[in-house]
């Protein structure tokens, strides 16, 4: 597979989208909860806003998360 540009969600701009590659957060408890909300590698993610918190859309679900978690989500934003 052709690997595009990678960055974490915390560095993306509102409106940008991509595919989740991996979750880097060390605490497995939070990892499980994020995955239960559908934040899993392989899913397409759209960043909707970054302030006051990060809001992303994955499938039909909108999820709010703070910067710490957003920075733990690594995304392939293509070319």
């Amino acid at each position, binding site marked *: 597979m052709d690997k595009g540009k990678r960055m974490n969600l915390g560095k993306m701009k509102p409106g940008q989208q991509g595919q989740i590659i991996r*979750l880097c957060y060390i605490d497995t408890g939070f990892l499980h909860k994020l995955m239960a*909300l559908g934040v899993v590698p392989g899913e397409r993610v759209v960043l909707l806003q970054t302030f*006051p*918190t990060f809001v992303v859309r994955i499938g039909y679900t909108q999820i709010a*998360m*703070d910067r710490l978690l957003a920075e733990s989500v690594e995304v392939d934003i293509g070319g």
Partner: protein
Amino acid sequence: MVTVNYDTVLEDAVTVITGLLTCDYKLSRRAMALLLLQGDQEATLMVRNIEPACECIMAGVNSTQQKFEQPLGYVIMMYRQQTANYILEQVTTMRQRSDDWAGYLSYLTMWPVTGIPILLLVLYVGMYKFVGQLGAGIVVEYLEQVTFGSYINPYVNDVLESCLPWEALRLLLGGDYGIITLGFRYAIAIVLPVVGTFFIAFSLLEDSGYLPRLAMMVDSIFKVIGLNGRAVIPITLGFGCGTMATMVTRTLETWRERLIATFLLALAIPCSAQLGLMMGMLSAKPVAMTIWVMIISGTFMFSGFLAARLIPGQRPVFYMELPPLRIPNITNVIIKSYTRMRWYFWEILPLFVAASVLIWLGKMTGGFDWLMRTLIPLTTALGLPGEATKIFIFGFFRRDYGAAGLYDLIETGGLTTAQLLVTATVLTLFVPCIAQFAVMTKERGWGIALCIAALIFPFAFAVGYVLHCSLTVMHMLL
């Protein structure tokens, strides 16, 4: 049935562990093996307790983990997700949803420029107008003055006068502090309308899907006080009933957040009964009201800020699903508000009755007078009349009970505005009511509950004292 196929390393581990399991778990052994590999605490504990080969099993789990860079729970979840996606592709078609009005409104509630005014509007209409003015104002006034003041209380007292020859028994049921004339009156006429309107407002917000949006708007502020946006639910609920809110703190993620939220609820969040009465009494004096709001919110932020720095533990993390906004379902709202009101009413009524009985006992035995005399120097130091001591003593039985006592004192014209401000401030910060304290001991343990009370009691009086002194120095005639 769908079976998820994992890679050979995982499948081999599952086969080995399945072969070692001997007991009956109600789950299939494969499911049990997968739970063990994922590090599920309950499954691990169970196996450690009953399996003869538990050492071998745990060694198998650990050696499998060594072969992967990521935690096994994560790896297993990935395979499951792949299978779920595969099934989804076979049976569904995705259509791009066009943004309807709800989507647009949802955007407005989350964009800070419009989101913050909407938040303030929700609080103003929901809390101030609906709960404060309608519940605590109009409804309370009617029930209190007309229903109880003109009908029930005089009737009860007349009946008691003609039927009960014993003075002591008459005072237990009627008179100034009787079970019916005081206990029932406070519970039904003062507390119920305020708490009732609050529950209706809260259920409406809950059902509309607005609460998670509220949580995300305030997350960065809550981070300052060591909490995350999720805590907005127990904290907002605290404006309704601190007892219920303290129970709800168990939805918070970490021990540290639960402790901070419990502490702030006990110290700086006035419950709806108090809030309604305070608003009612102070709204005629805008300067006093502003000072009161500033002191309480200042205390909230300051003590939260300190707690966040002093209490060790993990930094709070915020994540929440934002459900679509929808028009609240009226049946849901009615059922939820009714259930909460019923639960609340049956929880408080016995306490109000008990408080009436305790006050009656105290009056009969002289214990109450003794307690009042002992505490009078404290109230005098705050520049308050001796009468106010009664309010603080009541306040311990029930915060709203104390506030209602304050209401009585105002009605009879016993306090100046400065005194009112000091009393309102101390009473708001003061120890939580006895029910909230009981829940604190249950949720956080006796040690922590007592520590919190020991911290709050002197703090509330210290703030009152400083306020009294500064008002005197400034010769402020509010």
